Protein backbone atom coordinates (compact mmCIF):
# COMPACT_ATOMS: atom_id res chain seq x y z
CA UNK A 1 0.00 0.00 0.00
CA UNK A 2 1.33 3.43 -0.94
CA UNK A 3 0.59 6.32 1.38
CA UNK A 4 0.74 9.98 0.36
CA UNK A 5 2.81 11.90 2.92
CA UNK A 6 3.21 15.31 1.34
CA UNK A 7 1.59 17.32 -1.46
CA UNK A 8 2.55 20.67 -2.91
CA UNK A 9 -0.34 22.15 -4.91
CA UNK A 10 -0.79 25.19 -7.10
CA UNK A 11 -4.24 26.59 -6.32
CA UNK A 12 -6.23 29.57 -7.57
CA UNK A 13 -8.88 30.88 -5.16
CA UNK A 14 -11.11 33.95 -4.67
CA UNK A 15 -9.96 36.45 -2.00
CA UNK A 16 -12.60 35.10 0.38
CA UNK A 17 -12.36 32.91 2.39
CA UNK A 18 -8.91 34.19 3.33
CA UNK A 19 -5.75 32.03 3.51
CA UNK A 20 -6.25 31.29 7.21
CA UNK A 21 -9.82 30.02 6.79
CA UNK A 22 -8.81 28.18 3.64
CA UNK A 23 -5.96 26.35 5.40
CA UNK A 24 -8.16 25.53 8.40
CA UNK A 25 -10.84 24.05 6.15
CA UNK A 26 -8.25 21.95 4.28
CA UNK A 27 -6.72 20.72 7.55
CA UNK A 28 -10.20 19.51 8.58
CA UNK A 29 -10.20 17.15 5.58
CA UNK A 30 -7.96 14.79 7.59
CA UNK A 31 -7.28 14.04 11.22
CA UNK A 32 -3.59 14.88 11.30
CA UNK A 33 -3.07 17.20 8.32
CA UNK A 34 -0.54 19.99 8.55
CA UNK A 35 -1.27 22.70 5.99
CA UNK A 36 1.03 25.51 4.97
CA UNK A 37 -0.16 28.16 2.51
CA UNK A 38 1.95 30.76 0.72
CA UNK A 39 0.19 33.47 -1.29
CA UNK A 40 2.22 33.79 -4.48
CA UNK A 41 0.17 36.32 -6.41
CA UNK A 42 -2.80 38.60 -5.76
CA UNK A 43 -5.06 39.73 -8.59
CA UNK A 44 -8.21 41.87 -8.54
CA UNK A 45 -10.51 39.00 -7.58
CA UNK A 46 -8.24 35.99 -7.12
CA UNK A 47 -5.12 34.74 -5.38
CA UNK A 48 -2.61 32.12 -6.47
CA UNK A 49 -1.46 29.90 -3.61
CA UNK A 50 1.20 27.32 -2.97
CA UNK A 51 -0.51 24.82 -0.67
CA UNK A 52 1.61 22.28 1.19
CA UNK A 53 -0.30 19.45 2.87
CA UNK A 54 1.49 16.98 5.13
CA UNK A 55 0.02 13.97 6.89
CA UNK A 56 0.42 10.25 7.55
CA UNK A 57 -2.02 9.24 4.81
CA UNK A 58 -3.32 12.17 2.77
CA UNK A 59 -6.63 11.60 1.00
CA UNK A 60 -6.08 13.56 -2.21
CA UNK A 61 -9.76 13.41 -3.20
CA UNK A 62 -10.79 14.92 0.13
CA UNK A 63 -8.21 17.71 -0.22
CA UNK A 64 -9.33 18.47 -3.78
CA UNK A 65 -12.97 18.43 -2.74
CA UNK A 66 -12.14 20.83 0.13
CA UNK A 67 -10.45 23.21 -2.32
CA UNK A 68 -13.45 23.12 -4.68
CA UNK A 69 -15.97 23.57 -1.87
CA UNK A 70 -14.28 26.83 -0.91
CA UNK A 71 -14.39 28.10 -4.48
CA UNK A 72 -10.77 27.25 -5.27
CA UNK A 73 -9.43 25.55 -8.34
CA UNK A 74 -6.51 23.09 -8.36
CA UNK A 75 -4.15 24.04 -11.17
CA UNK A 76 -1.35 21.54 -10.70
CA UNK A 77 0.30 19.07 -8.36
CA UNK A 78 3.84 20.43 -8.10
CA UNK A 79 5.42 18.03 -5.62
CA UNK A 80 4.45 14.67 -4.16
CA UNK A 81 5.99 12.53 -1.45
CA UNK A 82 4.70 9.00 -1.02
CA UNK A 83 5.80 6.00 1.03
CA UNK A 84 5.05 2.33 0.54
CA UNK A 85 3.86 0.39 3.55
CA UNK A 86 4.52 -3.36 3.81
CA UNK A 87 1.33 -5.40 3.39
CA UNK A 88 0.24 -7.14 6.59
CA UNK A 89 0.35 -10.97 6.45
Amino acid sequence: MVLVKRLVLDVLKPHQPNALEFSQALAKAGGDYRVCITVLEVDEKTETLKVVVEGDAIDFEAVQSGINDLGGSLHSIDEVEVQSEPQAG
Partner: protein
Amino acid sequence: MSRKLGRFMNLLEQSRFLLRITRTHDIIRRYFVVNGFDGALTMLGLIIGFLVSGTTGLSVIINVCLGAAIALGVSGVSSAYVSEVAERKRALGKLEDAMITDLRNSAHGEAARGVPLLIALVNGFAPLAISLLILTPLIAANAGFALPVSPLYAAVAIALLLIFLLGVFLGSIAGVSWLRSGIQTLLIAILTAALIYLFASY
Protein backbone atom coordinates in the same frame (compact mmCIF):
# COMPACT_ATOMS: atom_id res chain seq x y z
CA MET B 1 -32.62 20.25 23.17
CA SER B 2 -28.80 20.41 23.04
CA ARG B 3 -28.84 18.84 19.56
CA LYS B 4 -31.29 21.52 18.40
CA LEU B 5 -29.05 24.19 19.93
CA GLY B 6 -26.04 22.64 18.21
CA ARG B 7 -27.86 22.67 14.87
CA PHE B 8 -28.87 26.29 15.43
CA MET B 9 -25.26 27.24 16.28
CA ASN B 10 -24.04 25.45 13.12
CA LEU B 11 -26.60 27.36 11.05
CA LEU B 12 -25.53 30.62 12.69
CA GLU B 13 -21.85 29.88 12.07
CA GLN B 14 -22.59 28.90 8.45
CA SER B 15 -24.59 32.12 7.94
CA ARG B 16 -21.74 34.20 9.36
CA PHE B 17 -19.30 32.38 7.04
CA LEU B 18 -21.47 33.07 3.98
CA LEU B 19 -21.84 36.74 4.94
CA ARG B 20 -18.07 36.96 5.46
CA ILE B 21 -17.08 35.46 2.10
CA THR B 22 -19.55 37.71 0.26
CA ARG B 23 -18.58 40.69 2.44
CA THR B 24 -22.23 41.53 3.03
CA HIS B 25 -22.07 42.25 6.79
CA ASP B 26 -22.34 45.96 6.14
CA ILE B 27 -25.23 45.52 3.69
CA ILE B 28 -27.27 43.53 6.21
CA ARG B 29 -26.54 46.13 8.92
CA ARG B 30 -27.55 48.96 6.59
CA TYR B 31 -30.79 47.22 5.65
CA PHE B 32 -31.57 46.66 9.34
CA VAL B 33 -31.12 50.34 10.21
CA VAL B 34 -32.81 51.76 7.11
CA ASN B 35 -35.90 49.58 7.26
CA GLY B 36 -36.04 49.65 11.07
CA PHE B 37 -36.06 53.44 10.85
CA ASP B 38 -38.83 53.20 8.22
CA GLY B 39 -40.91 51.03 10.55
CA ALA B 40 -40.43 53.31 13.56
CA LEU B 41 -41.24 56.51 11.63
CA THR B 42 -44.27 54.93 9.97
CA MET B 43 -45.69 53.84 13.33
CA LEU B 44 -44.89 57.25 14.83
CA GLY B 45 -46.67 58.94 11.93
CA LEU B 46 -49.74 56.73 12.19
CA ILE B 47 -50.04 57.12 15.96
CA ILE B 48 -49.62 60.90 15.83
CA GLY B 49 -52.19 60.94 13.05
CA PHE B 50 -54.62 59.13 15.34
CA LEU B 51 -53.76 61.51 18.22
CA VAL B 52 -54.52 64.52 16.00
CA SER B 53 -57.74 62.93 14.71
CA GLY B 54 -59.24 62.63 18.18
CA THR B 55 -61.16 59.70 19.55
CA THR B 56 -60.69 56.45 17.70
CA GLY B 57 -61.12 52.95 19.16
CA LEU B 58 -57.91 51.22 20.26
CA SER B 59 -58.73 48.11 18.26
CA VAL B 60 -59.07 50.21 15.08
CA ILE B 61 -55.70 51.89 15.75
CA ILE B 62 -54.04 48.51 16.43
CA ASN B 63 -55.48 46.99 13.27
CA VAL B 64 -54.38 49.90 11.10
CA CYS B 65 -50.87 49.93 12.61
CA LEU B 66 -50.57 46.13 12.42
CA GLY B 67 -51.64 46.26 8.78
CA ALA B 68 -48.95 48.82 8.05
CA ALA B 69 -46.34 46.83 10.04
CA ILE B 70 -47.12 43.60 8.17
CA ALA B 71 -47.06 45.42 4.84
CA LEU B 72 -43.66 46.93 5.73
CA GLY B 73 -42.39 43.47 6.71
CA VAL B 74 -43.58 41.77 3.52
CA SER B 75 -42.37 44.66 1.39
CA GLY B 76 -39.00 44.51 3.13
CA VAL B 77 -38.61 40.76 2.53
CA SER B 78 -39.73 40.76 -1.09
CA SER B 79 -37.92 43.90 -2.29
CA ALA B 80 -34.62 42.97 -0.64
CA TYR B 81 -34.83 39.37 -1.89
CA VAL B 82 -35.44 40.35 -5.52
CA SER B 83 -32.68 42.96 -5.58
CA GLU B 84 -30.15 40.86 -3.63
CA VAL B 85 -30.69 37.76 -5.81
CA ALA B 86 -29.77 39.91 -8.80
CA GLU B 87 -26.75 41.45 -7.01
CA ARG B 88 -25.40 38.09 -5.76
CA LYS B 89 -25.87 36.45 -9.20
CA ARG B 90 -23.94 39.29 -10.78
CA ALA B 91 -21.16 39.04 -8.18
CA LEU B 92 -20.97 35.24 -8.62
CA GLY B 93 -20.83 35.62 -12.40
CA LYS B 94 -17.92 38.07 -12.13
CA LEU B 95 -16.08 35.75 -9.75
CA GLU B 96 -16.68 32.77 -12.08
CA ASP B 97 -15.24 34.82 -14.96
CA ALA B 98 -12.13 35.60 -12.90
CA MET B 99 -11.74 31.98 -11.75
CA ILE B 100 -12.71 30.55 -15.16
CA THR B 101 -14.71 27.86 -13.37
CA ASP B 102 -18.27 27.01 -12.33
CA LEU B 103 -18.74 27.98 -8.68
CA ARG B 104 -22.38 26.89 -8.29
CA ASN B 105 -21.44 23.97 -6.03
CA SER B 106 -18.91 25.91 -3.94
CA ALA B 107 -19.40 28.02 -0.83
CA HIS B 108 -19.74 31.04 -3.14
CA GLY B 109 -22.61 29.39 -5.01
CA GLU B 110 -24.27 28.55 -1.71
CA ALA B 111 -23.76 32.16 -0.60
CA ALA B 112 -25.35 33.45 -3.81
CA ARG B 113 -28.46 31.41 -2.96
CA GLY B 114 -28.54 31.85 0.83
CA VAL B 115 -27.34 35.40 1.44
CA PRO B 116 -30.29 37.08 -0.40
CA LEU B 117 -32.66 35.13 1.85
CA LEU B 118 -30.80 36.20 5.00
CA ILE B 119 -30.73 39.84 3.94
CA ALA B 120 -34.40 39.71 2.96
CA LEU B 121 -35.38 38.26 6.34
CA VAL B 122 -33.46 40.98 8.21
CA ASN B 123 -34.92 43.65 5.95
CA GLY B 124 -38.44 42.43 6.65
CA PHE B 125 -37.93 41.57 10.30
CA ALA B 126 -36.48 44.97 11.29
CA PRO B 127 -39.57 47.13 10.56
CA LEU B 128 -41.97 44.43 11.75
CA ALA B 129 -40.21 43.89 15.10
CA ILE B 130 -39.74 47.61 15.73
CA SER B 131 -43.38 48.30 14.83
CA LEU B 132 -44.60 45.55 17.18
CA LEU B 133 -42.47 46.98 20.01
CA ILE B 134 -44.02 50.41 19.44
CA LEU B 135 -47.51 48.89 19.43
CA THR B 136 -46.94 47.06 22.74
CA PRO B 137 -48.70 49.69 24.94
CA LEU B 138 -51.72 49.74 22.60
CA ILE B 139 -51.96 45.94 22.58
CA ALA B 140 -51.51 45.81 26.38
CA ALA B 141 -54.17 48.48 26.98
CA ASN B 142 -56.55 46.72 24.58
CA ALA B 143 -55.98 43.47 26.48
CA GLY B 144 -57.10 45.19 29.72
CA PHE B 145 -53.76 46.10 31.32
CA ALA B 146 -53.92 49.43 33.14
CA LEU B 147 -51.14 51.79 31.99
CA PRO B 148 -50.01 54.87 33.98
CA VAL B 149 -50.15 57.00 30.80
CA SER B 150 -52.30 57.04 27.68
CA PRO B 151 -51.28 54.06 25.47
CA LEU B 152 -50.92 56.36 22.44
CA TYR B 153 -48.46 58.62 24.28
CA ALA B 154 -46.63 55.55 25.62
CA ALA B 155 -46.34 54.24 22.01
CA VAL B 156 -44.98 57.62 20.86
CA ALA B 157 -42.40 57.52 23.70
CA ILE B 158 -41.30 53.99 22.71
CA ALA B 159 -41.04 55.05 19.06
CA LEU B 160 -38.86 58.02 20.00
CA LEU B 161 -36.71 55.82 22.25
CA LEU B 162 -36.21 53.21 19.49
CA ILE B 163 -35.35 55.90 16.94
CA PHE B 164 -32.84 57.32 19.42
CA LEU B 165 -31.35 53.82 19.91
CA LEU B 166 -31.04 53.33 16.14
CA GLY B 167 -29.07 56.58 16.09
CA VAL B 168 -26.89 55.33 18.95
CA PHE B 169 -26.28 52.11 16.96
CA LEU B 170 -25.28 54.15 13.88
CA GLY B 171 -22.98 56.27 16.03
CA SER B 172 -21.24 53.19 17.39
CA ILE B 173 -20.73 51.85 13.83
CA ALA B 174 -19.31 55.15 12.61
CA GLY B 175 -17.16 55.51 15.73
CA VAL B 176 -18.60 58.98 16.47
CA SER B 177 -20.38 60.27 19.56
CA TRP B 178 -23.35 57.96 20.25
CA LEU B 179 -25.22 60.78 21.99
CA ARG B 180 -24.86 63.14 19.05
CA SER B 181 -25.90 60.45 16.59
CA GLY B 182 -28.88 59.48 18.77
CA ILE B 183 -30.00 63.10 19.07
CA GLN B 184 -29.69 63.54 15.28
CA THR B 185 -32.11 60.67 14.56
CA LEU B 186 -34.37 61.87 17.38
CA LEU B 187 -34.53 65.32 15.74
CA ILE B 188 -35.63 63.68 12.48
CA ALA B 189 -38.44 61.96 14.37
CA ILE B 190 -39.46 65.21 16.08
CA LEU B 191 -39.43 67.01 12.71
CA THR B 192 -41.66 64.26 11.28
CA ALA B 193 -44.04 64.61 14.21
CA ALA B 194 -44.12 68.40 13.78
CA LEU B 195 -44.89 68.07 10.04
CA ILE B 196 -47.72 65.65 10.77
CA TYR B 197 -49.19 68.00 13.40
CA LEU B 198 -48.87 70.90 10.96
CA PHE B 199 -50.56 69.20 8.00
CA ALA B 200 -52.95 66.86 9.79
CA SER B 201 -54.58 69.64 11.81
CA TYR B 202 -56.14 71.11 8.64
